[in-house]
Every structure is written in structure tokens, then in C-alpha cells.
């Protein structure tokens, strides 16, 4: 257990937040990690939610949504990261070690869960309810934003949560493919002699950040989940909404 104690000691030593082995300290790498993850998540959301809304509202294009989800699952995240690094390094050699390759990989990785969940959530809204709304004179836009989006919101947030956790986890691997972030400490720990405390400490920081991400986004998810009359929040407000975590898988 003393490795874990040493690792905790390393984390809680203030100077390590400023500088580690004469390089960027924990604070810098953590900020970079979070920044990279947030940028990627925002871009992915900006792409995936509109597409999911349109495809889901038209109740068509299931093939597209399912293919994207399956492809996203079949391509290892690490492979995506390395491929993005190689492609960018070949096309623009000066950008190989910038944020660009990692961001591209993380965006591609974050799109499938958000897209699929948005699509499934919108599409799962009861067809009769939608017809009733149209009958009441709601325009297509109103049907989408006043009816379908609120009902699909918990599932869309579940997709965001899945993507956020995946992005934070995968950003770690960027440390092995020319990028920065907390993965750099794992890289240091593996490649330099006698740095096991940095290795284990880095892994602890990564795990803590992932769990924190899950908790924060889980909170967002609960915020948008409607309460039923019994006061218990339910995901089955429509009786149709699939289990978010089954999809998260």
C-alpha cells in the first residue's frame, strides 16, 4: 500500500502543482486536460445535437444513427487518437504536437453517444402525443422544441454524460501520442526510472477527474429529468424512454 501513500503525498505536495520534474505541474496539466475535454465536448455537441434533432424529428435515418453508434464503438479510442496524430502530423507538420490532433479525435469520439441518444430520445416520443400537438396547431419547430426536446432532455443529457466521461478518459491517452494533460504523468511514470509515485498519482488524478465528471453531468441529467406526481424523478415519463445506461454501454 505504501505506493498509494507516496502517490497521495505527491498529489498533496503543493510544489508539485506548480512544477513536476522541471516541467508543467499538476495544475497546468489538469487545466489543459479540462480545457481540451471541454472544447472537444462543445464542438461535438454543436454537431451531434442538431443532427440528432433533425433525424429524430423526421423519424427517419435510424440506419445512420445506429451505424454511427456501432462504428463509434468498434474503433478503439486509442486508435482514433493515434490516427488523428499521424494524419495531422503528415498534413501540417507544425501542428502535430498542438491541441489539434487530440481535439479532432475527442470530437469524433464524443459524437456517437450524443447523436444516438438525441435521436433515440426524440424518436421515442409517443407518436400520438406528437399528432395531438400538431392537431392543436403547433408548428413543426414548436413540436420539436416544446414537446420533443423537453421529453428527450434526460436522454440527451445521458448521452452528454457518457461522452464527457469518455473524453476525459481518452484525453489521458493523448499523453502517449504527443499531447499534454494528466496522461503526461503516466508517461513520465512509465518512461523514467523510480517515478512510480508520479505514475500512481497521475492515475489517481485521472480516476478522480473521471468520477467528478460523471457526478457533475449526472447532476445535470437529474436537473432536466421531470418529476412525477409522486415526487420521484423518473426516466419513464413517457413510458417509452430507454434505459440511458444501457445505451451508454
Amino acid at each position: 500500500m505504501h505506493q498509494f501513500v507516496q502517490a497521495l503525498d505527491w498529489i498533496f505536495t503543493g510544489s508539485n502543482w506548480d512544477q513536476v520534474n522541471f516541467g508543467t505541474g499538476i495544475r497546468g496539466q489538469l487545466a489543459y486536460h479540462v480545457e481540451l475535454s471541454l472544447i472537444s465536448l462543445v464542438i461535438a455537441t454543436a454537431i451531434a445535437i442538431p443532427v440528432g434533432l433533425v433525424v429524430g424529428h423526421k423519424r427517419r435515418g435510424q440506419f445512420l444513427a445506429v451505424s454511427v453508434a456501432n462504428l463509434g464503438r468498434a474503433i478503439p479510442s486509442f486508435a482514433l487518437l493515434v490516427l488523428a496524430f499521424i494524419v495531422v502530423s503528415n498534413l501540417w507538420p507544425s501542428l502535430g504536437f498542438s491541441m489539434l490532433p487530440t481535439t479532432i479525435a475527442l470530437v469524433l469520439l464524443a459524437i456517437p453517444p450524443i447523436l444516438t441518444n438525441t435521436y433515440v430520445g426524440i424518436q421515442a416520443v409517443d407518436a400520438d402525443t406528437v399528432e395531438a400537438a400538431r392537431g392543436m396547431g403547433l408548428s413543426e419547430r414548436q413540436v420539436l422544441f416544446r414537446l420533443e426536446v423537453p421529453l428527450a432532455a434526460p436522454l440527451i443529457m445521458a448521452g452528454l454524460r457518457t461522452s464527457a466521461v469518455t473524453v476525459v478518459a481518452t484525453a489521458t491517452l493523448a499523453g502517449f501520442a504527443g499531447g499534454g494533460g494528466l496522461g503526461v504523468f503516466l508517461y513520465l511514470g512509465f518512461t523514467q526510472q523510480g517515478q512510480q509515485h508520479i505514475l500512481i498519482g497521475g492515475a489517481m488524478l485521472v480516476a478522480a477527474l473521471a468520477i467528478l465528471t460523471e457526478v457533475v453531468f449526472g447532476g445535470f441529467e437529474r436537473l432536466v429529468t421531470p418529476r412525477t406526481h409522486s415526487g420521484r424523478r423518473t426516466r419513464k415519463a413517457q413510458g417509452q424512454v430507454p434505459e440511458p445506461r444501457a445505451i451508454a454501454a
Partner: protein
Amino acid sequence: MIAQALHPPTIWEWVGDHTSLILSRLGQHAELTIIAVAIGLAISLPLSIVAYRHSRVYPPITWFTGLMYTIPSVALFVLLIPFTGLSNVTVEIGLVSYTLLILIRNIVVGLRGVSEDVKEAAVGMGYTRRQLLWRVELPMALPAIVAGVRVATVSTVGLVTVGFIIGHGGLGELIIEGLNRFYTPEVIVGVVMSVALALVADGLLLLLERRLTPWARSGTRVRPFLRTQTDAVTA
């Protein structure tokens, strides 16, 4: 040597020269995956049955497996090093722990979806609890269970590549070696082979599901509850 540096081998030349290496990495990758999913299933099945019968046990189980699922694989592999070293046991523990959430969720959803009428009919015919489980509930939950096994398998194939960090990454070793040597063909071979392995495994499991559930093919293939519950997963 100089000629080689000036004209690095093409991807086909490299594949031709390294067939046995590629095949051994592929074999290692498949072995790590199969063992992880098999152990995962052996743990998930009894746990799911308990959770299905005693619904109070379900939340803590999903809480714990969800926590394991949230910890990134790189971090988990590293945190296990002090206990199991740089061995393939470390990789397997990590891989198994990632299959649990997926498998348990799908098995429980499948079991819960078995119609009450069918169960009552079976009990009326004199089935004991054990017979009900093995002859009615589990067979009827099979599509959801296989859906879970498919997702778990495909995810595991992807996760194995991360095992490179402790030297047991299967095809992931080709990817990292190619990256370290700036030799793109090796990376591409590693990526293509691991995607292919995932797709082939998924296809084989789909065929297995069709064989195991011949009743599902007649008429509407999937019962309504399964469509809504595991739509994205079955796909």
C-alpha cells in the same frame, strides 16, 4: 540499410514480412477478449439473477459496477500495478470490470421483461423456481443477454488496445510501436485488424443469437419491450 531508410516498405511488404507477428498479436487480442467476456459473464449471470429476485440488491450492484465503468482503463490498469504487476492478470481484471455493468444491466432488463402471463402459466404447469428460471426466464431473456454480450465484446476489443501501457495490448502493441517509430503502415494494420476483430466477433454473436432463439425469427422479430429497452444496444 540506407535504401530501407529512403524507401520504407509499403504496407503490403510490411504485412508480408511480419505475418507471424501480426497473427500472434491478433491471437493475443482475441484471447484477452474472450477470457474477459467469459469471466465477466460468469460473474454477471449469478449477480443478475440475485438482483432480479431481490430488487434491493440491484442499485448497489449498478452503483459499484458503474463506478468501475467510470474509472478510465488507463488509470485502472496503472492502479492495479502495485497488486498484480505488469502481468496480463492486471489487464484481465480491468477488462472484466468493464464488462460487468453492460452485462448485468442487459441481463436484468431481459429478465424483468419476461411477461408475467408466461411466468404464471409456467408456475401453473407446476414448474419449480429453478425450472422457471432455466426453462422460461433465461431463454426468454436471451436476446437481451446476447445484446449485452455483443456490446461487452466490442467494447472489450477496443479496450484491449489500451493494455499496451503495461505491455499486454494485443494489436494495440502494433499501434504504439508504429507511433513510436513514426511508421504509419504498422499503425494502420493494428487499427484495421482490431476494428475487423470487433466486427467479426459481433457478427458471430449475432449468428449465435439467431441460432439460440429460433422463435424470434417468426413474425415480429423482437418483442416490443426489447425494442424500447435495448434499441441502441441490440443494434
